[in-house]
């Protein structure tokens, strides 16, 4: 079965961890993830500058490893990312900002990618909240 997974919560929210565990179980169960879509506060999970306390799970890092390990299509909503200061090199240059904090495997794109993912997948599962 094909899954699209959307995450609306930042990496410090419990639902971000739940989304990751669900995504891992999806792959482990032999299913396909057609796209991960990070929206609203979920864009913080894609930032390269998140530093977790040493005694806590590094969720942003775990997401990065998961996406790279399975070579997934991981899209970050560009409008949500820009307003939260999550920029790749191209956007940092475009808006004259001093640094970029988003790079591969993440890709900045529009909300249309979520719509398309919902069409391509058999199920769209959204995670947010507590």
């Amino acid at each position, binding site marked *: 079965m094909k899954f699209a997974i959307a995450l609306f919560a930042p990496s410090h929210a419990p639902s971000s961890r739940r989304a990751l565990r669900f995504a891992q179980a999806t792959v482990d169960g032999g*299913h396909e993830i057609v796209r991960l879509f990070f929206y609203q506060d979920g864009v913080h999970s894609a930032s390269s500058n998140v530093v977790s306390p040493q005694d806590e799970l590094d969720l942003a890092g775990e997401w990065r490893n998961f996406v790279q390990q399975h070579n997934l299509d991981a899209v970050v909503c560009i409008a949500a990312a820009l307003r939260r200061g999550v920029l790749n090199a191209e956007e940092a240059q475009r808006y004259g900002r001093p640094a970029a904090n988003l790079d591969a495997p993440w890709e900045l794109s529009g909300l249309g990618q979520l719509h398309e993912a919902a069409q391509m997948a058999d199920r769209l*599962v959204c995670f*947010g909240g507590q």
Partner: protein
Amino acid sequence: MATLHLLSHSPFSDSRLASCLRLLGPDDGVLLSGDAVYALQPGTAQLQALELMPASIALYALDEDLQARALSAPARAQAIDYPTFVELCGHYAKVNSWL
């Protein structure tokens, strides 16, 4: 079309659970995760409301979140792990998250 409703907010801080219960179809399922598992606390109106659901509506709770809050699933609810969560998404035609 049967829908799996995914709740993650505490039913003691907002009205998501109450709204969800009003909208349930006869073959829908309810999956409690995160703070939403507090709805299974014994002696609460929330648990009573869940137990009044028709038997055709399945009630699930993520075992991990139950354990983290020292709760156990009552007879009406089924504690599930993540692989079962994934399979349930396939069992229902849609998954609706109460974000």
